[in-house]
Every structure is written in structure tokens, then in C-alpha cells.
């Protein structure tokens, strides 16, 4: 019974004299390698030349601030809940009087940690966030020697207040708002 139409009949054909010489085949092979010799090389010499990333690249996370420099995050925990790798942990705290310039709402994350070794950079945290507080950027998580140093706290995640040093997430934001 024929199950598929992909089956092939085996032919045990004897090689002809020319084929048995192997020399034409060898010359053919040499020509193929020679063609590759002059072909444009695909290598990108990394530190000097860097490949352009897609605008929706998912790398190192950033915790955004609003226009007035206040942290967007309210420590609701939805990102931690959405995270399939369980890489995010946080501790919530109440905003004290006089801290209105630091945090946008009454509640904020006093500790916010992402374990970069657990993170699979899927972007579900970003999707889950109701406050547009967490985004993935085109920055690469650096290599390190110790596992502990891959647990990134707020000092590495929150973007600087200084307007000129803000992290550009326009690419991700576009995709985020579309969905």
C-alpha cells in the first residue's frame, strides 16, 4: 500500500567508467569550493561592526519613569504573575508624604528583582503591565562570572531621571499599543 507519494524506487545503478575515475567529480568539487572562496563572507566582525537590531528586539528590561521622572511601577505583581519563567520578584511599599516626585502612585516597588538567568525574554511581563512601566530594550545582558550578579535590582533596571539619558523604547511601545 502506498501511504505517501514521496517514496522513491531504489536504483542500484553501476557507475560508468568516467564516474569511476572520480576525477571529473573532484574537479567539480574544486570548482564549488573555489566559488565559495570568492563569495562575500557572511561573518560580522563583532565588536567593530554591529548588526542592526530589529526595533522590537527583546533584551535587557527597563523600568520606565513618566515625563516628570516618577516611577510608573505600582508593584501590582501582574508581571511576576505573567512571567512563565518565574524570574520576577518584588516587594511593595507605600509612598510616604514628600515622595510624590519619586513615585507616580501611592504604592511602589521598594525591591524589584529580575533573575536574568531565569528570564527567557518572552516579553509577557511587558504585555501584562497595566501601567506601561516595564519594557524590554535592545540592550544585551552582559556576561558575568557569578550567578548572584545576574539578579538585577532596581539600580540596574530603573531608567535614569535625566531626560537625556532616558531609555528609548519606542519600537516596543508601538508593538505594545497595537496588541
Amino acid at each position, binding site marked *: 500500500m502506498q501511504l505517501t507519494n514521496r517514496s522513491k524506487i531504489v536504483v542500484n545503478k553501476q557507475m560508468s567508467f568516467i564516474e569511476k575515475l572520480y576525477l571529473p567529480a*573532484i574537479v567539480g568539487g*574544486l570548482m*564549488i*569550493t*573555489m566559488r*565559495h*572562496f570568492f563569495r562575500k563572507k557572511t*561573518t560580522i*566582525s563583532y565588536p567593530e561592526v554591529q548588526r542592526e537590531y530589529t526595533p522590537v528586539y527583546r533584551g535587557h528590561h527597563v523600568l520606565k519613569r513618566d515625563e516628570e521622572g516618577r516611577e510608573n511601577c505600582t508593584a501590582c505583581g501582574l508581571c511576576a504573575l505573567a512571567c512563565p519563567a518565574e524570574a520576577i520578584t518584588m516587594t511593595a511599599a507605600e509612598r510616604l508624604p514628600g515622595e510624590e516626585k519619586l513615585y507616580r502612585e501611592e504604592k511602589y516597588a521598594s525591591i524589584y528583582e529580575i533573575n536574568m538567568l531565569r528570564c527567557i525574554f518572552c516579553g509577557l511581563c511587558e504585555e501584562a503591565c497595566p501601567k506601561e512601566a516595564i519594557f524590554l530594550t535592545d540592550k544585551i545582558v552582559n556576561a558575568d562570572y557569578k550567578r548572584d550578579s545576574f539578579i538585577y535590582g532596581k539600580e540596574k533596571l530603573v531608567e535614569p531621571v535625566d531626560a537625556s539619558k532616558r531609555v528609548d523604547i519606542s519600537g516596543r511601545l508601538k508593538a505594545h499599543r497595537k496588541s
Partner: protein
Amino acid sequence: METADLIFKAIFVVAVFSVSLVIAMYSTYAERKVAAFFQDRLGPNRAGPFGLLQPLADGVKMFMKEEIIPAQADKNLFILGPALAMFTACMTGVVIPWGDSLIINGKEFIMQITDVNIGILYVFGVVSIGVYGIMIGGWASNNKFSLLGALRASSQMISYELAMGMSIIALVMMSGTLSIREIVQLQPGAHWNVFVQPLGFLLFIICAFAETNRTPFDLPECETELVGGYHTEYSSMKLGFYLFAEYINMFISSAIIACLYFGGYNFPFINSLGLSHNMVSILGTVVLFGKIFFFIFFFMWIRWTIPRFRYDQLMRVGWKVLLPLAVLNIVLTAVYLLWKHDLWSTSLN
């Protein structure tokens, strides 16, 4: 021998020795670069401009590596192996005519260390000793893989040496001499032996691949089956010596192929340039090195194109294909020579 002769020879010996070492060194670089280009990569490009200092870095690495001699190995033989491989590799360059001759102060110096009248036999003899380096190294390591690699190497070398010797006999019959210098002188301009001995050249170059343990005949060190072959147990500069010897052998083989079949330092229109004798000689040497570099490149080109033979195929090709073809070539050459010199009538009567 006069003092001037002695001084010239001494300088020439040192020059040939250092040139073959430098070329072997840069062959490793060339090999990696060529391999990379064949595979659409860039190759080493970090050490110095275009990675040109890479061989030096490799050499420093080899020297700094820990030297390990296995406890069960025969220490003396273990050291003798790479030494012998290197020694024989360096010895073959002696009889190769690197150029015509230089006239200094009205005295003629030939650009060859020594013009032995059995030059080809000398090369064959020394190359055959080279197999001892591999065999002793493999045996002394006291390791199965090394021993298997050594066994393969020795049987392969013996098998192919035969076909190689036979393929050269036809050439010797045509030239009537065993001196490499005279063979080169018999190929003026573009009257290269490759045009009259194409089959012999093909057999010779195949055997040259086998003799230098290069792909498709690199079974002695085939990584997929034997870890590292005969040099599995070797480390540091002893391993370096083995690898180095292979590249020197490749260089010398290329030189011999260029001399025997491609006219050595001869090139077309050699006499119509109107240059002085010394200039022509130097130009000839440059041309010879051009030919040598082409063949080194050809060795690498083949290496990155053709897969390795299976062992039984290797033996079959050696004994059942190359050897009969070499004998056929001898017979054909003999018939041609008889016809050419019109010896039919005299010899038949």
C-alpha cells in the same frame, strides 16, 4: 672547496633552512585563512593586521604549554619521534635547485645546497625515514589510538611510495638523469614535463598527498576515528614539531612537484627579456616560489574539498589503481622513447 664557496654555501644553507621554517610557519596561517575562505568565513584576523601575527601567537602558545610525557610511555623514543620527523623534513630541501646560478665577482655559484647526481633517490630515501618519526612516536606513546595511527601511517606510506617511485621512473627514462637540477635544466621555457608526462604527474601528485598525510589521505591523524592519531599523547612543542614537520613536508613536496613537472625556475620567454644572468636567476627563483605557493594552495584547496578515504579504499587505490597505472605509464614511455629514437628496427633485429 674554496673559502668563497664555503661562505656562499653556509649562507645558502641558513637561508634555505630559515625560509622553509618561515614558510611552514605561515602555511599554518594560510591553511586557516584558506579554510575560512572556502567556508565563507574570515579566518584569524585578531593578532596583528589581517591576523598576520597569528603564527607567532600559536608558537608562543605551543612553547608555554605544559609538557606531558605519559607515565607508561617510552621516554627516549617519545622524544625521538618528533625530533626525527622534524629532522627528515628539514633534510629534503638540500637537493632542490632553488634557482639557476649567481655570478659574483666573475665566479659562478649554483643556487642549490648540493647537486647530488641521485637527487631524486635521496629525496625518496629521506622521506621514507620520515615515516619512522611517526611510527616511533605512535609506538612510544603506548596508546591504542596512537599505535593505530602509526600503523596506518606506515602502511600507507609504504604503499604509496611504491607508486610514487614507479611514476617517477617514466620521468627519469625521459630525462636520462636522477639529478633534480639536470631535470630542471631539461625543461627550458615552457617545455615542462607535465605536458609530456600528464599521467605520471597525476600519479605523482596523488602519491605526494599520501606521503605528506594530507586529505584525502590523512588517515594517520583522522580525528573522527582515532582522536589525534599518532600524536594523540603529544603536547606542547613536541606536538608543534609534528605539525610543523607536516607543513615543511608540504612545502618540500610542492617544490619537488614544481621542479620535476613544472620546470622549476624556468619560465616562458626567459631569454627574450634581455636581463643580466643574475637578474634572470633571481626572477627564476621568484617564479619557482610562485609555483610552490600555488601547489601549497592546491594542497589546501584539495583538503577543504575532498572527504577522507576509507582505509580499504585507500589501500585499493594504492595497490590496484595507482601502481598498475604507473607501470602502464612506464611501458607507454618506453614505447614512445623507442619510436622517437627509431630503435624499433635495431632492437627487434
